[in-house]
């Protein structure tokens, strides 16, 4: 383990890119969850990600609009933000490296649907451009 560091939750954590165990971008830290019960100051309990978390953070019409679009595209039960327990974090340094895959977290569910119904059928989807 490296030396303990002091991080500023807003400066050094919020809005960072998440990187899953295969080092693929897996969204952003859209919001932070704090436990405010029983302590003299709030304690960070989880990172929140996914479109619902972002929609909650954006005020007004655009947030509400994002949420309603997301609801239409997904099951009722996944309309909540994705929670990432602190134990899943490998490292924080300019980005948040996770120990688990994006799929296990439920991030990027749309990707499968896009590939299966549409993109995957186009020739060349399996190769990087040459």
């Amino acid at each position: 383990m490296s030396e303990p560091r002091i991080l500023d939750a807003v400066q050094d954590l919020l809005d960072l890119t998440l990187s899953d165990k295969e080092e693929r971008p897996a969204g952003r830290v859209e919001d932070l969850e704090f436990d405010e019960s029983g302590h003299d100051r709030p304690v960070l309990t989880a990172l929140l990600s996914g479109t619902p978390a972002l929609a909650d953070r954006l005020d007004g019409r655009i947030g509400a609009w994002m949420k309603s679009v997301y609801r239409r595209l997904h099951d009722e039960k996944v309309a909540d933000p994705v929670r990432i327990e602190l134990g899943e974090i490998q490292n924080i340094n300019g980005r948040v490296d996770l120990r688990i895959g994006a799929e296990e977290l439920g991030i990027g569910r749309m990707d499968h649907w896009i590939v299966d119904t549409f993109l995957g059928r186009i020739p060349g989807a399996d190769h990087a451009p040459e």
Partner: protein
Amino acid sequence: MKRLLEISLGVLTAIGAFVDVGDLVASAESGARFRMALAWALVLGTIGIVLYAEMAGRIATLSKRATFDLVRERMGAGLGMVTLVASFLVNFLTLAAELGGLALVLALATSLNYLLWVIPFAAALWIVIWRVKYSVMEKTVGLVGLALLVVIVAVWRLGPDWSALLHSATHPVVPNSQTHADYWYWAISILGATITVYEPFFYSSGAIEEKWGRNDLIVNRTNVYLGFPLGGIVSLAIMALGAIFLFPRGIDVQHLSQSGLPVGAALGRAGIAFFLVGAFAAIFAASLETALSAGYIVAQYFGWPWGKMVKPKEAPRFHLVIIVTVIGAALLVQSSIEPVKLTEYAIALVAVAAPFTYLPILLLANDPRYVRTKVNSFLSNFLATGFFAVLVVASVATIPLLIITKGGST
């Protein structure tokens, strides 16, 4: 030797890719209306894009992060979203303008109606993005775009009164036929056409796609410091052609063919052929850049996988955004909205969105967390801050001027 070749290739590519439909329209039209009285705006815009593209390239090279990735991180979700929406809309209009421009060039070459060419070109554009490797794509269109250098030959062949041209550039006077509001509206348009909204996004994402490292900082500098100003000279030559040939005849640029008219007069059919090939490649390059930028900025804001270096299957949302954007832009052009008018609105609106994207670049280029020891020098900060102030004034003035001049057409 290989390094030198790579650097010169980069410079040549940068010249070809500097010019797009915005420059072709704005330079020719402002030359035709104000002679060289707006040359200063072109020079100012070139200095601005040189400064900011160099910073965006340096930040990307050292931090391995593209501009919009960092815009989101430093500006947060809310302001980042405002920047995303503004940049996306202007970029979308620019893409539509480029597609319209491509179709117009082809229509000139084939005498078919331009509307027939929109869908085939949107499709070709997407196939290149889907299948062709980044470096191949960029170098091919950039090099063919060099055919546009024919405009410099054309200026020389028309044998203008050089001292009168220079005088018109250094002592700007608004001709009697034009209003002052029009003059300032076109100053902003020239500025917008020169800086473009997509260049920093595209350039910094390209640096990541090509895996630039510390050693490539020199490539970044030469591309920008040499290639962009040479591209600026091409724009200046197009303005000069307008001033020498179109202004005295009272020809107003209503159609892209009028940008090429002086080239034909100076060099005949061969000149026109070079001009059309160069214009086609330059606009095609810009269409690729804007289409890719749409995917880059959305994916980077949300933290999705992006880029041409990964399989399309692994960056599905990035590719979906590009497909939807290209289709949308093609439909907009197909609605038979006047492509030259569309271009004029797109370049004027660049000024409205530019401060949002240029400020984070300036701040990040001074932040050791991203660029380590390579922070801006005092001189570049001084110039970049001055340029930013100009952008803010232009940004505030654009909409009122757009309304007063009815889109620069009074």
